[in-house]
């Protein structure tokens, strides 16, 4: 039988690949195989909003601790909470803290029998209203107008309500395509909460992970899907994590007469103006956000790390304390700001998270 040269080449390639079952940037001890006894693995599951930041944190943390492998699966907040409750993840990333009825000692398989969970804010990111309208580079919108657009009540770009806050802009006589998230998401939850708090007359529906079905509009999957739909379409508007907006225009939201851009500073301020949820343990840092304060950009996503107060396995506790501690440190927050465009926690809050983590056993 003759073997054709191309097939022979393919076989040779396959064989070479077979000889190289390792990656050159990994030291042999660092591979998370069970063979190397000194290596440890920390598993986190949770919000995809934290993915970019987690990637940076994992990289920095693993560089400092070459024997530790951290796997953060960006499966989603709900999956993260389920995994944490089932004991499948040492910590969960979640776009909302656990609710009162979800808390309670003994409800978490990975924690000691008498241990409750702790909600620690680690990631803050502004949600931008992004738009793609030809000839429009600056856009300022009242919360009522944003609500009206996404509720399908304002349908033309040259609607008087939009013209009012943008006297100089050349707004076309075109239909608005409002793009919202097709999937359930913490981003939608925080965005609808913002509209509900700031424009209750137009947006009566309470905050929800699901975008209200009867408001119509275009649906797209995930942050990248929304950004892509807004970029690829014409006369579109949408909402997405500010860091993902790329070259798209970001509308200013007019709060108390002042147009605010979704900047890190304007977003991070929100936790300094908000109160922690009442009735929780002293070290729990679950916040109920106050979006109406002066100078605070209202549409902000706060994402949490959910950890045990006391772990069943003390080795896991040490790993979690080290890793989450790094996440909430000044270094970690700066790293996330550079890699994910998030808003760093204020130093006061960093200290609170550290105190909470010190109590973890």
């Amino acid at each position, binding site marked *: 039988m003759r073997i054709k040269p191309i097939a022979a080449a393919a076989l040779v390639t396959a064989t070479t690949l077979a000889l190289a079952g390792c990656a050159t940037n990994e030291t042999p001890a660092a591979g998370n195989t069970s063979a190397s006894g000194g290596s440890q693995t920390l598993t986190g599951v949770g919000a*995809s909003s934290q993915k970019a930041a987690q990637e940076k944190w994992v990289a920095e943390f693993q560089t400092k601790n070459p024997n530790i492998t951290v796997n953060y699966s960006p*499966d*989603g*907040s*709900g*999956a993260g*909470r*389920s995994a944490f409750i089932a004991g499948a993840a040492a910590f969960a990333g979640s776009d909302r803290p656990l609710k009162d009825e979800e808390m309670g000692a003994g409800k978490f398989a990975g924690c000691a029998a008498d241990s409750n969970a702790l909600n620690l804010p680690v990631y803050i990111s502004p949600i931008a209203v992004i738009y793609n309208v030809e000839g429009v580079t600056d856009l300022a919108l009242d919360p009522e107008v944003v609500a009206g657009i996404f509720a399908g009540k304002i349908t033309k770009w040259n609607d008087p309500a939009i013209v009012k806050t943008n006297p100089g802009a050349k707004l076309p006589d075109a*239909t608005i*395509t409002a*793009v919202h998230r*097709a*999937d*359930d*998401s*913490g981003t939608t939850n925080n965005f609808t909460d913002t509209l509900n708090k700031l424009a209750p007359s137009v947006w009566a529906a309470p905050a929800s*992970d*699901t975008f209200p*079905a009867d408001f*119509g*509009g*275009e*649906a*797209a*999957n995930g942050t990248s*899907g929304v950004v*892509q*739909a807004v970029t*690829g*379409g*014409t*006369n*579109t508007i949408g909402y997405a994590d500010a860091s993902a907006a790329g070259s798209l225009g970001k509308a200013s939201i007019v709060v108390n007469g002042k147009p605010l851009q979704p900047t890190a500073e304007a977003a991070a301020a929100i936790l300094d103006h908000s109160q922690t949820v009442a009735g929780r343990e002293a070290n729990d840092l679950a916040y109920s956000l106050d979006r109406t304060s002066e100078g605070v950009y209202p549409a902000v996503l706060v994402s949490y790390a959910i950890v045990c107060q006391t772990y069943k396995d003390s080795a896991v506790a040490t790993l979690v304390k080290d890793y989450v501690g790094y996440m909430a440190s000044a270094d970690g927050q700066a790293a996330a700001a550079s890699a994910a465009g998030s808003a760093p926690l204020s130093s006061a809050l960093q200290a609170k998270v550290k105190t909470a983590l010190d109590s973890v056993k």
Partner: protein
Amino acid sequence: MTTGVGGAGGPGAAPPRTLWEATRKQNEPMTEKLTRPPTADPDAGPPAQADPRRPGEAIFRGLATGAGITILVILALVASFLLVQGSPALFADPAKLASQGYGEFASWVLPYAFGTVWAALLALLLAVPVAIGIALFISHYAPRRLAQPLGYVIDLLAAVPSVVFGLWGSLVLAPAVRPLYEALNAHLGFIPLFAGQVSGTGRTILTAAIVLATMILPIITSLCREVFLQAPRLHEEAALALGATRWEMIKMAVLPFARPGIIAAIMLGLGRALGETMAVTMVLSGSRNITFELLTSQNPNTIAATIAQNFPEAFGLKTNQLIAAGLVLFVITLAVNSIARWIVARRAEYSGAN
């Protein structure tokens, strides 16, 4: 086999519709005589009697039967998984579903069920004629030198991951077809299919159907081509020798022979179209509308895409409800397959092995 061709249409006989049927009729008694042993055990060839000195037969037969039963077991496991995990939502109090789930089950899942069937149907309508065309082109029209690489390329395209189809659909296809949609809406808007407010991004159910059609095209083509190539060469040559044109030869000798294979290929394509998750998720602007309008933003979403989109954030009862939706999709597949089986069963199936 060849002897039958000459006498295909004797005077007085009912004219056979195709050459293939003609030869088959002629041969039937003979084949029966050859294959049926005197003991007339219909599903065993002559040497199939269990022979204690040669256990190979029993072992092999047992292995084959065992494999078949394994499949049934796997499917039963999948079905019971869906039932167990989905039942909390199926039997939950509607008020509880409204507060902790996505709302009352039947009315929640109905638009998605509709969207699933509607998108798959559109995709099949687009893909099947084209796929059969390509398969015929490769098997009977293209020059031999061209045909092999072409078949190869088509096989490769079956491997393009759905994520890539999704990327392509939303980045390239949707913007490209939007002007076409606007033209359709402007000129043919009186047809209900093309009515409504045209989507500003082109991410409509028609776009999703085109993407799905592109995805299932290689699968249908690949199997059809194999089947077309297996058509008995002698029949084809006999048809041509009798003066049939190439198309008549295909109609008489290839297509009737390949019909069960074509249907199997379509069922494979349909299965993928019904269950496809990622591409639809990325391309379709889904909502909970039941509408036949093809060009608007308010398209019915599919079940698979709904599960994929909401599963990451689902929690507690919502998870159960999504899995129950998976069960509905399972039932839809079952129903669609039953209908297809029923259609096929009305026509006799040809098999070289029985």
